[in-house]
């Protein structure tokens, strides 16, 4: 766990620090459709279908579960 935090920290300090925008340049990123999960209900319905039909789940968020379908 510490290793992962360390790697993420290094990434952010090095490569990622070259990326990004100023606060006043966020007009496009602030649009709802630019959210990483811009349709949460759709994602939740999709995740539930695939959770019950395939051997993998999660990734975007927690692995799901909560139903006897798999």
């Amino acid at each position, binding site marked *: 766990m510490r290793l992962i*935090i360390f790697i993420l920290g290094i990434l952010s300090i090095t490569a990622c620090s070259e990326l990004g925008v100023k606060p006043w340049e966020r007009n496009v990123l602030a649009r709802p459709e630019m959210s*990483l999960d811009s349709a949460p209900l759709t994602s939740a319905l999709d995740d539930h279908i695939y959770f019950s039909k395939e051997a993998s789940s999660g990734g975007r968020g927690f692995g799901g579960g909560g139903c006897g379908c798999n």
Partner: protein
Amino acid sequence: MKKHQKITLALASATCSLINVAADVQAEESADLGDWDINAAVLYYTESDRVSAFEPVISAKKQINDDESISLKLTLDSLTGPSANGAVPGINPQTFTKPSGSGSYTTPANEAPLDDTFMDTRVAFNASWEQELSRMTRMTLGGNFSKEYDYLSLGVSAVVAHDINQRNTSFTTGVSFSNDTIEPEGDIPTAFGIMQPAGSTQPRQTSSDDKTIIDVLFGITQVIDRDSLFQVNYSYSQADGYLTDPFKVISVVDGTTGLPIIEDATTNLSQVVYENRPDSRAKHSFYTQYKRNFTGDVLDISYRYMFDDWEIASHTVDFRYRLKTSETTFWQPHLRYYQQSEAEFFQPYFVSGQQPAEGSDNFYATSDYRLGEMTTYTVGLEYGEKYQDYGWSIAAEFYLQSVSEPSVKVGQLAQQELYPDVDAFMLRFNYDF
């Protein structure tokens, strides 16, 4: 003041690493303080000759003040229709006992056996509370409740997100815990117990069992430029307890002819044994998502690699392109590709004499195709309209599961399709109030 609050919320939303916890984080631009921001959706899912599902869901989010919000979500899920019981097809009709033990169903010759007694309704409720801990740090606490006729799941989760680098970089860490209890119709079968004729005593061990699932997630979200951002997540999931499907069986066949062994000639009951899976599973997932704006159109692409200690590994690629056709309308094609390898204990059938003895808890085998080598494809198209105060969309999707046949099939099984393709059609309607 209100305008300032909205800008603050918009900035927070754009940099927030959106984690799909209990109640999902909604786009916050439209959230005014004190108002409930309500979204609803309904999904109809139907497989050819198999399961159908109807699933309405409604979520509501309220911004209590500048740095605090609550979210609630209610999901109903109604399932009906036959599903594969795991047995192989035969050249003669086969009879199987229902899970309850009090009746039976018959599968026609040369068809994959389907249990047509499958029917369930699920109610799920999720609640979460999001609180700003400091100017750059947010915490979300969630609780989940899900109840079916034979299944109960209770869960809690916590996620902390921290922004640095002028909110261009967000770190997210989260943990969730759930405790699930299953109390199946007809009780929990004994591992590799042989199914008996309806009305006879079935091989059962207990009436209920449970499992715990702990998920841990680390993520980083990075803004690249004015039009694009990406996210990388690693998640670990540890499940312990009863991970077997109590309704799945494995056929016992003759080693030469491949014909299912007859357990009871009077009822034409085929010899099948109940499956047994390990009582723990550790999954690792790497997930990355990239999103880019092209003059109003939005590309959304993600890839996930998962592997676990059941020797299953999978690749998932998801592609969406939101095509802006006017200021208020859009079309969005969706493609998804998924491929998985089979579990190390995947066993399509047993040759007679090689099946484990009843009660062999330390031997694992399943013929559930969902743990077999499989490729799935999704093709969909969505149309939506979005206005200042509301929006709606409708989507149609086609889903195909293609399962690999075993490399060795004895006798008549060589002429049979053990795992026919499963195709499904989905229709989804979303409405944002």
